[in-house]
């Protein structure tokens, strides 16, 4: 069985400061990893994903995440946050192959302080 752990339920950070949202996964086989973002009163949106290849993946709005197999981690980082980044972020894991369930973490609320 696969699982995802997001240790931080809330992360407050000042505007223009760097941020890291932590995600650790558990799986005995190959994995696909995702970060989804949920803005207030909206559905989840895919932010970035790791399937294979380069372990560093980037989003269009400046976030990046690095797949670390030895530490079973997929932490999300941004060097300088903006007020508009205030949202809840969910890490998720799946496996290659058909009909594979996506398992979500409990989420981390990022609060950017002006």
């Amino acid at each position, binding site marked *: 069985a696969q699982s995802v752990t997001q240790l931080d339920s809330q992360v407050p950070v000042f505007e223009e400061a760097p941020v890291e949202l932590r995600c650790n996964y558990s799986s005995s086989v190959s994995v*696909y990893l995702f970060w989804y973002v949920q803005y207030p009163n909206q559905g989840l949106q895919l932010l970035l994903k790791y399937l294979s290849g380069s372990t560093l993946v980037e989003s269009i709005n400046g976030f990046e995440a690095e797949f670390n197999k030895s530490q079973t981690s997929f932490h999300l980082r941004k060097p300088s946050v903006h007020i508009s980044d205030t949202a809840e972020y*969910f890490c998720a894991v799946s496996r290659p192959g058909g009909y594979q369930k996506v398992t979500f*973490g409990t989420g981390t609320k990022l609060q950017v302080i002006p």
Partner: protein
Amino acid sequence: EAGVAQSPRYKIIEKRQSVAFWCNPISGHATLYWYQQILGQGPKLLIQFQNNGVVDDSQLPKDRFSAERLKGVDSTLKIQPAKLEDSAVYLCASSLVDSGHNEQFFGPGTRLTVL
């Protein structure tokens, strides 16, 4: 391109009543998912359809929850009778195909409060 539509957005009912949620996925998306998101938790998959067939309903409480996807397009999730612990946001998502790595597109959700 229109997104995933859900209705209603909010619903308040008393325990033991019944309720139904509707979802219209993105046109052409073969796979449809229903998730339950309890406050403070991540989304939990209730049921997954591939066209109009059920792929996974292992976490659906079948004694009270039911779902259908007639004609492989829109879908309805029903709870009968509702319990207090069913209070949650019910999310519908869809994807082009199901192979684990395809992006899921989520609707805005239906917030259910059971009193």
